[in-house]
Each structure stands twice: as C-alpha cells, then as structure tokens.
C-alpha cells in the first residue's frame, strides 16, 4: 500500500487550533496524516520536541501559530519565527531534509487555509518518502534515566 507519512503538527491554541476546529466544523476535507498536539502558544514548542518527534519516527513536523501581531500573548510567535529557521539548520546538519520541518501562520478564521496547508505538506512528505534514521533501530537503547542525585 502507498507510503502513508506520519506527520506531527504543533498547533497554537488561540489561532491555528481554532482554525483547524473551524475547518472541521465547516466540513472541509483534509489529509488525516497530521497528528495534532495543542500548545497554548507556538512559542511553547521546544525544538527538543521536534527532534524527539523525528527520533520516534515522524516523517515530517509542522508548527502552526497566529499571524505576527495577532498573538494572544503579543510576542509568542516572534520567538517561534526565530527558533524554527535555526532548528532547520540543525536538522539539515543531522542529514534530515529541512523541508520535513515547516512553519505556517493560520488565524482562527482561516479554516480553508489550514486544510490546504495540511494537504500540501502531506503530499510533499509523501514525495520525500519515509525518514530512515539509525536511531530508529539499534541506537535507541539507553538505560540512562535522569535520577535525583545525592
């Protein structure tokens, strides 16, 4: 069967999540591949989560937030617009195609835009194919758990 990419989407609660909700409410069809994690603001998305997502087998990650100036918390998205490009350089450094990581602004009223982006991204990842990382297999094992120290 065709390669169904696994995509993780980090959506900010006030704009993109509401936008996605609107898309659903307005019965707009979009690819089911994006699995959504809701954070209060796009600024909450820690680059470690994105790397972790790739480690546990995600083929693509998309981060969505409010348009600049609309952020419910005034400056949250200003931080995201700086973190994601920097993280792309790191991802490229690990040999992962930077197109697998994407940042988009979707406001609460842009239901259709949300659907379009999801479909577009899914096709793009499908064209890139599955992401094979050694860490998926044998490098994963570790017993090192962070534990309280005396």
């Amino acid at each position, binding site marked *: 069967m065709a390669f169904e990419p*696994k995509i*993780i989407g980090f959506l900010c609660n006030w704009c993109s999540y509401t936008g996605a909700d609107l898309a659903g409410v307005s019965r707009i069809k979009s690819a089911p591949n994006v*699995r*959504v*994690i809701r*954070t*209060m*603001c796009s*600024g*909450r*998305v*820690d*680059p*470690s*989560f994105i790397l*972790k*997502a790739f480690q*546990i*087998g*995600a083929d693509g990650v998309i981060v969505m937030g409010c348009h600049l100036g609309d*952020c*419910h*918390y*005034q*400056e*949250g998205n200003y*931080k995201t617009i700086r*973190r994601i490009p920097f993280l792309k350089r790191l991802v490229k450094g690990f040999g992962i195609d930077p197109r697998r990581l994407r940042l988009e602004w979707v406001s609460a009223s842009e239901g259709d835009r949300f659907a379009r982006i999801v479909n577009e991204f899914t096709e793009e990842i499908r064209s890139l194919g599955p992401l094979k990382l050694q860490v998926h297999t044998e490098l994963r094992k570790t017993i090192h758990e962070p534990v309280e120290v005396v």
Partner: protein
Amino acid sequence: MVTLKIDDKQVQVPEDTSILKAAEKAGIWIPTLCYSELFEPYGVCRLCVVEAVRGKRSRVVTSCNYPVREGINVLTNSPKIQWIRKTILELMLARWPNVKVVKDLARDVGVEKPRFVSLQRDEAEDACILCGKCVSVCREVVQANVLGFAYRGIKREIALPFGVQSEACIVCGACAHVCPTGHIKMVVEDYKGKKPEFTLGPKTAIYVPTLQAVPRVPVIDADSCIHFKTGGCEYCAKVCEPNAINFGMKDEVEEIEVGQILVATGFDIFDASAMAQYGYGTLDNVYSSLEFEMMLNSTGPTNGQVLTKDGREPRSVAIVHCIGSRDTNHHSYCSRVCCMYALKYAHLVHDRTKASIYQFYIDMRAFGKGYEEFYVRILDKGVKVIRGKVAEVVEAPPAQKDEGSLVVRCEDTLAGKLLEIPVDMVVLCNAIEARRDSDAVRRLFSISKSPDGFFLERHPKLDPTSTMTDGVYIAGCAQGPKDIPDVVAQASSAAARMLSFISKGEVEIDPVRAFVQEEYCSGCKICNSLCPYTAIEFLAEKKVSHVNEALCKGCGTCVAACPSSAMTGHGFTDAQILAELDGIMV
C-alpha cells in the same frame, strides 16, 4: 533706644539704626543713590551726607551708615550740606549728562548745568554710574559673587571675572533689577520660538499659581529661586511676618505599592505655528484656543475682558475650526470638541463685546445632548457662520487697517465665493494631540498606543477603559479626544472597574502559568527579557529568576527557551507533551 534731634525734630530709634533710617522715621527726605534696603549700605555716592553736630564739633558724615549717637543734632539741609550735594551732583552730571536718575537728583537739588565738562563724559542714558549696587546685591543677597570692581581711581569699572561670562552667574537678574540706570540688561539668546502672549507662568520665584488654586498658598519654584542655587537671598523669609517660609522642605519621591493604576494623563494642544499660513507666532492678535481661554478666564491676564494686544476691544473676531485636525499633513482624526467650544467662544465674545463674529468651519459637529439647540441659539445671535477652510490669515494692508488689523482669506463653499474679511482678532481651534511624552509613559506602564498616538484600549467597543496589561486602566483624552461628559463617564467606569477588584479582595488568575524550579535555576537570565508582561523578575539575593503568578498569562515561551529546563508550567510540562508525543506516534 537712642534719642536725637534731626533738623530740630526729636526722634527715638533703636541702638544701631542709621541716621537715614531715623530721618525716614521722622519723615525727612535725604537723597540717596547707592543705598538700598537689600544690602549693607556702601556709602560711596556721598549724596546722603549730613552734618552731625555734637557740642561745638560738627562733622560731615554719610547718613546711610552712620549709627545714631545719643544727643547729637543732625542737620540734613544745612547750607554746607546743600553745597556738597550740589557739587557732587555737578561732578556726576559732568560725566553722565543723560542718566535719568542723576538728572532727577540734580534737579531736586537745584543743579541745572555743571560748571565743567568731564573728559570721561558718557552720553549714554544707561551709563554705569559706579554706584556698586549690583556688586553688593550679587555678593550679599544672591551670594553668587560674580560682579566686582576692577582697576582704580577714574578708570574704576564694574567687571566680570576675566571679563567673560562667569559660570557662577545664575542669571537671576538681581543686578539688572537694582541697577538705577538700566545699564545691565537681561539677554535671552537661545529662545527662538514665539513667546506666548499670555503666560500662565509666574513672574517671581515665589508665587501663588492662580487665584483659584487649591490650596491658595504661595509656592517656591526651586529651579529659579536664588536660595536653592547659592544659599543666599531668603528675602521672602525676611518679609514674611508669620515667617511661614521653611526652605528645608524638599520635593520627595514616594514609592507606593498599588494594585491598579488609572492612566489619565490628558492631552497637548497642537502647536499652530507649524501651520505658517495662519500667522500664529508671527502676527499679533492671533491666539490659540488655550490662550483665548486664558483671556476669557476672570483670573486671567486680562481679567476676563476680550482685548487686542494694544488693549482695545476688537471690532471683529474670526474663530477658525479644525487647525491641525482633519488634516492629512498633521492629524487626520477629528478632535471632536472644537466645534462646541468655538460656539462657546462666539457666545462669550457676543456677550462681552460688540464685535461682529465670523465662524469658519468644515462640518459643524454639534453631536451632544442639547448641543444642536445651542448652535441654533448662536445662529440667532447673528454670528456669521461660514462653511469653508480658511486659506490664510495675513496682515491687513494699510488701506484696510481701520476696519481690522488682520485679513482672513477663505472660500465660502456653500456660496461658492472667495472671501477676504478684515478682523481685529483671530482665534484658532487647535487640534487635541497625544502628549509629547506619551511614548515614555506608555513604556512605563507597558501599554501600547494606537496609530494616532493615544493609548490603546483593550477593546474599542467592549472594553474602552482597560488595557492589555491587567490592572492598568486609561481614561479621558489620553485615550482619545473626547468631551467632558464622555470623559466623566469613562473615568467613572474605570473607577468602578477598579473598585470591583478592590472589593473582591483577591485576583482571579487562570491556572495555566509558568513557575521556576529554583533548585535547577542558575540565574542565566535568558528568560528575563522574554516576557511581554514583565512577569519574570530576577531575585538578586537568591540569584535565581522568579515568575510573578499574577502577571503570567501562561504562554510558555519562557519554558521552551529555558536552557536548563528549570522553567516549567502547570498544564504543559515537558513530560506531559513528550507523553502526548509518544501517545500519538503509536
């Protein structure tokens, strides 16, 4: 007490008073020139000489600084004294023929023309006559010690140290004030702009702000009071009988902890000199709205009368709307209140003078309750209301000078005619604009501003009094031009809002917010600059950062940014999100 006779008049005075003071008390006039109440008598002009007769020995002494002695008889007008005064004034007249104070004294003493001509003759009316008053006032009263005498004998002159402007001079003007000939002038070079016709500003360092001030008590302006500069003067303290003046009082800055703040910092009026065509600042009798308001005020400079600059009643007055408002080059917004106060001006000028009144408007905005009726009343009074933007105000050509000193050129758009109306006075309705320091104030309370510069409310319709920052409210023209009733309404709503919080006693905050795990935080301060709500502060003594729960909105930006993951947040810790991540990947 010492008893003595002055021109055979018995006088009793305290121990160390001078003969001059005693004579004054006895109502006897003695000419003085270099004497002044303000400082120790210098006794150099020698005009105040009198004969002090004790027994058979008579001695010519200067009355200004000769202390009275028991039983002496003072002759203030004996032939010898007259002769001395005449000759001394002759000497002075020879050198300074046109100085008014010398000419007057000479005339009083009966000297018309000096017998000789002085080689040092100085024709100037404001020549320096070396009386030394400026030196004494600067040394003893102001205690700035800037002036002094230089050279000796006939070459003696008043001099500044090294002949250059001394930094010790605090430009208090005391020397110019005491100089009997006006030789010392106050020069204000750097002020370029128009000195406003009527200034609210005080004339002296100690003043009563206005007669309607609450409390109506004099106050000292520490910046211009000499005492605060040199420790000298204290003349006001000398003359205040109840001696209520305490120089020790200082402005204090108090720091008070408050829960909520209402920013009602008001507005500035637009500086009309920026629109040269209306002649504000260059032509006489062109007033801004605030200046005209001062003129109308009964405690104002003209006690409420409408007068032109040379004190006449104007025959015709022009009131021009929208100066700086509804103007793309300056402020595109409408200042809302000008139309109504312009009509008020028309009404008051009509009552107080017989002037014909012209009103130039674009749209008459009588928006409030009872406003339209007031407008109709004004029209009934015969005020000529002309729809059209005034093109310019110019000096009347000499021919038309008798009808009005100014000419207003405009186009009456309804009649489609160009008009040139001579008037005696023009009142401009200046736009209301955001205060010049609004940016600084905005940053202080971390509230934002709208494009027109006024403070931005949380929501234009639903929440016009509060701002994005909890606990900070705005009211009045700081939020935008508005009329007094609107201001009152807005202010009361803000006050009510604040009272509701105060009565509730505690502040309800949502659970989702960040906090610092102090055992892991090493005070790298990366999070400090992130929070738009300034909720993160640095505890200097513990050297760790701390989140102020009341201010934190829970966006989590700082949690992501914390390099040691010491910052975490209720409801979205790393572990929770990672668990979600694992969950959805299965």
